[in-house]
């Protein structure tokens, strides 16, 4: 890679060292680059730890294997939730925020030392949380519902982590101000940056909700407060617990647009439409937190229905717009690239051997079909009673967070390694297969957990046979056992995909071919117009026959599944 290390950053502005990336033509601020590296590496370490714990959970819930005893199962389940739902995801998201601000806007990073403070607090919080969980007195699972009480170190660790993350988010907003003041871009920010702004806004609400509930809970664990109301805790906690997953949605949608631009030279179909879809997220996506409380008798039907069935559907509309515009932008770009035959040549001739593209497209499809549709079902008050607190819920969020977000973040990592670490992928064949291994595994986990949940399997119980219960009031059908076994098998496949990802990424960073020479070429090349990722501009076409057909299939699946669940619901009441 031809890189020019220089110290000039334009007249009248603060000088900051940067280099020019010869693959993308982007100006790379060195402080931002270093922070992206450490956040990404830290994220991957927590993914490894959390993923291993996840495999332990899946192999325990497989009745024929049941690898962990109950005490260890709940401990590992707590650690799995914290490490993957919080630490892996949020460390990576901070890397995305620095990329989308300093790098895409060609700006210096505002206050790098403050960003380092944020990173250190996040790291201390994450390590402290693992310490609290692994020593065995904080087995309260991810939701940590009161009156279950964890060690005060557990609550303090999450507060420290949240403060660190909030500091990093503030650095992101400050970088937007710096870029604007120093005129590093004209007009509106690029769409990917706008998606990152959406993620950062949701992060502020998420972290504020976390502070509101975790600080009194920490004081309660210290004995300074006598009681925390359990329903109050749930309402405020889910403002953090579910909204944190909405940061992911915004970030991974931004990544879909980024990869489409960098690998295929895609432009958004319409900047206006895509930005309006992100605005729907900003205004309404956090309200979906209420779907966790749809079975709570203390909350009124008005509160439940306004927050889920009314407002949440506006956020769903935003997702469906992205579900049209991302594949639409890819189709438009591919047709521009010469793949114009029939309705689907653009798709069949897409770079399926490039893990950045295949991971992104699998993430897009599975997020929509599995995570998206099941989210609407769970968010409908009447249908929610069919699967509330069953294994369907983890099935849904493995469709969004694992098959959707994690796969998208993995796909982005295949670009981060060559462009930021300046090392090429060391084992391209392994990298090529990785998204399929992990994607199919994650998709299977989601579907089979949802299947088991539909049959009534509870969300958290160690043993679905209830062998140690005094009174076995429930006997699950054989199909439920089959689902749990298949869940275990697909968890092994996903773990294998995760292992391939971690080993290949780490080996590439440490020993991959260097890309800083003048003739160096990436093994998975970018599009000539990859610079599009940092520019404003619309494709301005709707002549997208392939995308229209795909969207039609999605709608048919959506409507069918929605009404099948109403049919299930109608069978709960037999009027004879």
């Amino acid at each position: 890679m031809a890189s020019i290390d220089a110290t000039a950053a334009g007249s009248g502005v603060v000088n900051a060292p940067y280099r020019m990336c010869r693959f993308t033509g982007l100006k790379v601020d060195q402080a931002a680059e270093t922070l992206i590296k450490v956040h990404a590496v830290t994220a991957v370490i927590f993914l490894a730890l959390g993923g291993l714990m996840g495999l332990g959970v899946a192999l325990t819930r497989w009745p024929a294997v049941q690898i962990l005893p109950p005490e260890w199962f709940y401990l590992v389940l707590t650690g799995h939730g914290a490490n993957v739902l919080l630490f892996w995801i949020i460390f990576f998201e901070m890397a995305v925020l620095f990329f989308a601000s300093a790098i895409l806007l060609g700006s210096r990073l505002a206050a790098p030392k403050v960003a380092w403070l944020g990173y250190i607090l996040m790291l201390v919080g994450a390590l402290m949380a693992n310490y609290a969980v692994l020593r065995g007195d904080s087995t309260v699972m991810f939701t940590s519902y009161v009156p279950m009480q964890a060690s005060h170190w557990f609550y303090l660790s999450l507060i420290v982590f949240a403060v660190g993350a909030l500091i990093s988010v503030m650095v992101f907003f400050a970088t937007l101000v710096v870029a604007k003041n120093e005129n590093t871009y004209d007009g509106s920010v690029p769409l990917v940056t706008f998606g990152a702004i959406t993620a950062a806004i949701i992060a502020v609400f998420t972290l504020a909700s976390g502070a509101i509930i975790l600080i009194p809970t920490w004081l309660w664990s210290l004995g300074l407060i006598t009681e925390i109301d359990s329903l109050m805790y749930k309402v405020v906690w889910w403002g953090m617990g579910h909204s944190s997953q909405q940061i992911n949605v915004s970030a991974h949608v931004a990544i879909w647009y980024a990869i489409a631009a960098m690998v295929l030279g895609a432009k958004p179909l319409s900047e206006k439409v895509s930005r309006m879809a992100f605005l729907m997220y900003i205004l309404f996506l956090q309200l979906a937190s209420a779907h966790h409380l749809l079975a709570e008798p203390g909350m009124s039907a008005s509160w439940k229905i306004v927050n889920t069935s009314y407002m949440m559907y506006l956020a769903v509309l935003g997702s469906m717009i992205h579900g049209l515009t991302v594949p639409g932008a890819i189709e438009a770009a591919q047709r521009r690239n010469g793949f114009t035959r029939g309705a689907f040549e653009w798709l069949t001739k897409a770079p399926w051997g490039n893990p950045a593209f295949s991971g992104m497209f699998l993430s897009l499809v599975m997020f929509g079909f599995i995570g998206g549709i099941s989210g609407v079902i769970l968010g409908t008050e009447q249908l929610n009673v069919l699967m509330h607190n069953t294994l369907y819920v983890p099935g849904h969020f493995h469709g969004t967070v694992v098959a959707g977000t994690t796969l998208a973040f993995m796909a982005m990592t295949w670009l981060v390694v060559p462009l930021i670490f300046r090392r090429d992928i060391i084992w391209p064949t392994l990298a090529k297969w990785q998204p399929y291994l992990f994607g199919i595994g994650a998709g299977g986990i989601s579907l089979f957990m949802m299947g088991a949940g539909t049959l009534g399997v509870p969300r958290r119980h160690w043993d679905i046979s209830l062998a140690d219960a005094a009174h076995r009031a429930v006997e699950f059908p054989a199909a439920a056992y089959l689902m749990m076994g298949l869940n275990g098998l697909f968890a092994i496949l996903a773990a294998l995909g995760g292992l391939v990802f971690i080993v290949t990424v780490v080996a590439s960073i440490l020993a991959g071919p260097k890309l800083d020479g003048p003739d160096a070429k990436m093994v998975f090349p970018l599009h000539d117009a990859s610079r599009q990722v940092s520019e404003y501009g619309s494709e301005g076409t709707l002549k997208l026959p392939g995308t229209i057909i795909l969207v039609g299939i999605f709608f048919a699946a959506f409507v069918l599944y929605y009404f099948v669940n109403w049919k299930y619901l109608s069978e709960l009441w037999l009027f004879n």
Partner: protein
Amino acid sequence: MAETPQKAPAGEAREKVPMMQQVLDNPFLLLFLGVTVPAVLYLIWGIMEVASVPVGQ
């Protein structure tokens, strides 16, 4: 297929910017809206509902 790139020309920033674009170009206004709407509809309304549940004797 029609390809009508809409890359903003250099002079466009000096033209009248539509109001909606001005809203979308202001991250701090969006931050205000993105925190206020869920804070009112979800958090404050939710907390008021919990607070109004009668205390058991």
